[in-house]
Structure formats: structure tokens, C-alpha cells
């Protein structure tokens, strides 16, 4: 591998890593606060992609402008899902929780197939084919925009969690929900908001991905698997872990594609996944919990 290819893979890995990080931050938030492994997370992303696709196609909207619609829309969608589907099973055994989100995953993917058909769709914008060049490295402008937005969103979310009262309440529920309830935090409300934010993250990632990737009803499965890897890598429920994990997996996939082949890049991801599960199930940055 020469330097040219190395830098190309590095750039592409970092840019894609930003997207993975945004998806994973939403997933890890749901996991940290509600202790729910959400298999439907990728479907929120897929639906976000479709929403952007239709807004662009029908109303000729700029794909990045659609974010002002997808984010609030999916926040409320998440709140509703949490209120009616997730809340009743919060105290249920782990397998029931997994199965419910799995049911939601199957339902939403096939709902999309029923509504939009099984074929792939993509959008073209003025900047779709605009290629930026730095030195010998080329990349699509849409990838850079995606990366910048993803970083803005994760940073904003981080500040929100650190600085605002609501953010602190969410973190309190993540650490110890019973204690949070005792000090007067409305835990049910926090759960709904956390799930809403997690859903909105996935949908925002979908909107950002739409100018780059094709969408079909089953694209969510690929993303949710990657997001699981990132979340486990960073430590379940760990915000910074998900962010760093996103970049690690982004880089692992782009270098995997160069060194092995494009179709084998996921093998790298899953191998990392299994190794992390076996050797460090608390994640790279996790502390051992009793």
C-alpha cells in the first residue's frame, strides 16, 4: 500500500466514521438510559433516508434543508414508539425487549417495502458529483458535508447532555434511574426524550447519508449491525466511546476494503466485534461494572 492509497483510505474512513458515530451515539443513548438493545435503530435511519428522498423528489428541497423536518419528525416518532411500545416492556426480560425491537425492525423494513417498493432509490443534487481534492486525496463534497453535520450534531448533543438541566437529568437516569426518580426527576419523561433524541440521531444520519448512498427498505439492517459494533466497542451507553468507536470502525472498514476487498470489509468489522465481546465486553473505554 503506497501513501496515496493510505491517505485516501484514511480520509474516507474518517468521513464515514463521522456518520457511524452519529448513528451509534443515538443507539448508545437509548441503551444507556433505557437499557434497551434497539434493533429498530437502523430502520429509523432508513425511514429518515426515505423522508429526505421524498422531500427532495416531490418538493425539490435541498437534502440538507430536509434536516429541519426529519429531526423533529423523528423525535416525535421516537417519543411515540417509546410511549406505546417500549415503555410497557421496560421491566420485561431481556429477550422480550430484544424481540420487541426486532419485531419493530421487521415491521418497519417491510412497511417501507410495501410503500416504496423493493428497488433502490437515490437522489441527485447539484453537488452530488462535485469532487474535492486535497493533495492526492479525492473525496465527494457530500461526504465532507455529511461529516461536518455529523460532528456538529454530536457536539451539540454532548453539550446538551453536559450543560442543560434536561441533559443532566438524562445522564442521571442513565447512571441510576431509581436514584434519579428519588430526587424528583420525571423518569418517564426522560425516557421518552432520550428515545426521541436517539431516533432523531438515526434519522438525521439517514438524511445526511441520502445524497451519498442508495436507499432500499433493507438498508437499515447493515447500519444497525455496524452501529452495534460501534456501541459495543465504545462501551454500551458510553457517549464518547460511541464517537471514537465510530471512527475506529469507519477506518477499519475503509482499510479493510483496501487491504482485503470491498465485499470483505464487513468481515473486519464483525471480527472486531466478536473479539471485543469476548475480551472486553465493557468496551475499549468502559470501566468494569460489578
Amino acid at each position, binding site marked *: 500500500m503506497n501513501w496515496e492509497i493510505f491517505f485516501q483510505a484514511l480520509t474516507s474512513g474518517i468521513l464515514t466514521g463521522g456518520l457511524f458515530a452519529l448513528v451509534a451515539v443515538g443507539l448508545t443513548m437509548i441503551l444507556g438510559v433505557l437499557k434497551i*438493545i434497539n434493533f429498530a435503530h437502523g430502520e429509523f435511519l432508513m425511514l429518515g433516508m426515505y423522508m429526505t428522498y421524498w422531500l427532495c423528489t416531490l418538493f425539490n428541497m435541498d437534502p440538507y434543508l430536509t434536516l429541519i423536518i426529519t429531526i423533529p419528525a423523528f423525535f416525535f416518532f421516537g417519543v411515540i414508539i417509546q410511549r406505546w*411500545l417500549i415503555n*410497557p*416492556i421496560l421491566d*420485561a*426480560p*431481556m*429477550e*422480550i425487549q*430484544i*424481540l*420487541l425491537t*426486532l*419485531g*419493530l*425492525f*421487521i*415491521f*418497519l*423494513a*417491510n*412497511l*417501507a*417495502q*410495501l410503500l416504496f*417498493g*423493493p428497488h433502490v432509490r437515490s437522489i441527485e443534487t447539484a453537488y452530488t458529483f462535485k469532487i474535492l481534492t486535497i493533495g492526492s486525496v479525492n473525496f465527494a463534497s457530500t461526504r465532507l458535508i455529511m461529516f461536518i453535520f455529523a460532528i456538529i450534531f454530536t457536539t451539540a448533543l454532548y453539550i446538551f447532555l453536559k450543560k442543560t438541566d434536561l441533559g443532566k437529568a438524562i445522564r442521571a437516569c442513565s447512571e441510576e434511574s431509581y436514584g434519579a426518580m428519588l430526587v424528583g426527576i420525571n423518569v418517564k419523561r426522560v425516557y421518552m426524550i432520550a428515545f426521541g433524541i436517539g431516533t432523531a440521531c438515526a434519522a438525521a444520519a439517514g438524511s445526511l447519508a441520502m445524497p451519498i448512498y442508495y436507499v432500499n*427498505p433493507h438498508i437499515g*439492517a447493515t447500519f444497525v*449491525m455496524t452501529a*452495534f459494533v460501534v456501541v*459495543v466497542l465504545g462501551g454500551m451507553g458510553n457517549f464518547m466511546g460511541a464517537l471514537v468507536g465510530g471512527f475506529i470502525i469507519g477506518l477499519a472498514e475503509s482499510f479493510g476494503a483496501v487491504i482485503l*476487498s470491498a*465485499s*470483505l470489509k*464487513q*468481515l473486519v468489522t*464483525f*471480527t472486531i*466485534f*466478536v473479539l471485543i*465481546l*469476548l*475480551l472486553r*465486553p465493557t468496551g475499549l473505554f468502559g470501566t468494569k461494572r460489578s
Partner: protein
Amino acid sequence: MLQEAVKRHLIWIAIFLILLILPFFIGTYLQHIMIFIFFYAYLSQCWNILSGYTGQFSLGNAAFFGLGAYTSSVLFYYFNLSPWIGMFIGAFVALAIGLFIGYVSFHFGLKEAFFALATLAFAEILRIMFLNMPVMGGAQGILIPLKGDAPLLFQFDGKIPFYYISFIMMVSSTIIVYIIERSKIGYYFKAIHQNEESAEALGVNARKYKIYATGISAFLTAFGGTFYAQYFMYIDPNLTFGPSVSFDIMLRSIIGGVGTLAGPIIGSFILTPLGEITREIFGATSGIHMMAYGAILILVCLFMPRGVYPWFRQRFSKSS
């Protein structure tokens, strides 16, 4: 004593006898649906050993299914080895991989969701590997060579032989689980499910028995893979190793009742015709039959989380 036992199980014996003669009175489409009911009940029963009784929730039984399908098919394709023999080789391959997965998972103490995710990842690793192995047919898969009506090569004219094979598979898996349920190993499995630490305290080597459960489940699941390959005469990595295979397998037990003997069978009798009929009416690409699966799964989780069979039994015993 025997008479009493016969009386008590009269309804089951009656159903058994009806199913035994049924294929001669129904058309090929209904035969196909019945074959699928038995086939999924069988696979789900195999899953039930590991996940229902022992409580180790697997999202990756497709790994063992795919290994069974590929081993017998590759041996048949290249060496003309009868799938009747190939399926035992496949079962031993799946057993080896199953014991390996069980060993590494439980050696490192994987539990609950972590084990579930790991099994999913193992199946995905196998799927991607087979997709990238041209010797194994790669993404194009393997077309099983047609030999006409050749019972010795697991190929038949018509569906009736497949009906009986799948029926025997379902019945024998249920008998196996029945025997396990009443043996020492079965009690260990259930003890591990209920409280692993207590089981360990009482001297059960939980890790060993969890590995055994994975092995048994893997070994039996592989036969289903060979059956699938010979029934459809075509396999590819997504059809055999894909996550939807694992989901399809476990859904039956979940709907029917996890960790019960009748659960996988009842679940399959409910879910399989529903899936096949909606697929027939609305077409396979409409997604409606899968939507129905998803909706049923959500409803079962919300309203009868222990499955249909325990739910009804509970209602029934309450009213009487």
C-alpha cells in the same frame, strides 16, 4: 396405566394419526405448507434446546443451518456423495463449530444480550465468508444437480416423501427434547436458565452444560439445512446464513412458548401458514407477510410475553 396415558394424550394421538394420512387427501400446495410447518417446528425445537430450556438466547442459529446446507450440498456437487450421508457430515461440522462458538462465548463469560449479539455476529461472519468463497459458489450459490426421482440421493418425485421426512424430523426432535427434559442434563439446563449462580453453587458445571446445549442445538439444526437444500435444490449464503433465517427459526418458539415442548410446534402451526398464505396472496416482494410477522411479534411481546401456549394454559387452568 397405559390406558390412562392413552386417554390423557388422546387428542395428541388423534392429531398424530391425522397428520400421518393427511398428505393423500390434500393438494401439492397444502402439502408444501405442511412441509414448511414441520420444517420450521423442527428448527425451532432445536433452537428451543439452547435458548428456551438453557436460556442462552441465540440470534445466530442460521450459522448451523447454513453449515448443514452447505456441507451436504458441496459434497454432493463435487463428489456426488449422497446427501443422506452428507447431512451427517454436515451435522458434525455444525457440532464442531457449535462447540467452538459455545466454548469461546462461555469461556469468556458472555451472557444474555452479549451472547445474543455474538451468535448474530458469528452467523454474519460465516455468511460473508461464504459470499466470498468462489469454491462454495460465492454469491451465486449452489444449484443442486438434478437426478430425477432418486430416493438414495434425497431427491423425490412429488412432495409426499418430503412431507414424511419433515414430519419425522419434527416428531423426533420433539421426542429428543422430551427425553432431554426428563433427564439429568435437562434439569441442569433448566437450572442454568432459572439461576445460573445457584446452579453452580449446587455443583452444576454451568459452562460445560451451556456448551453442550449449543452443540446439541447446532448438530440438530444442521439436518434442517440439508433438508432445505434438497427440497429447494438451491442454496446461497443469504438464504442459509442470513439473519432472517435465525429470526424465522426462533419466531416459532417465541410465538408458541419458549422453553415448552409444544411451543415450537404450536408457533409453527400459527405462523407458517400465515406467512405462506399472505405471501401467496400479496406476493413475496410486497413485504406484507413479513410485516405481519413483525406486528405479531410486537403484540406477543406486549400481551403474551411467555407465548401463546402458556397463555392459553394459564387461562384454561384459571377458569377450571
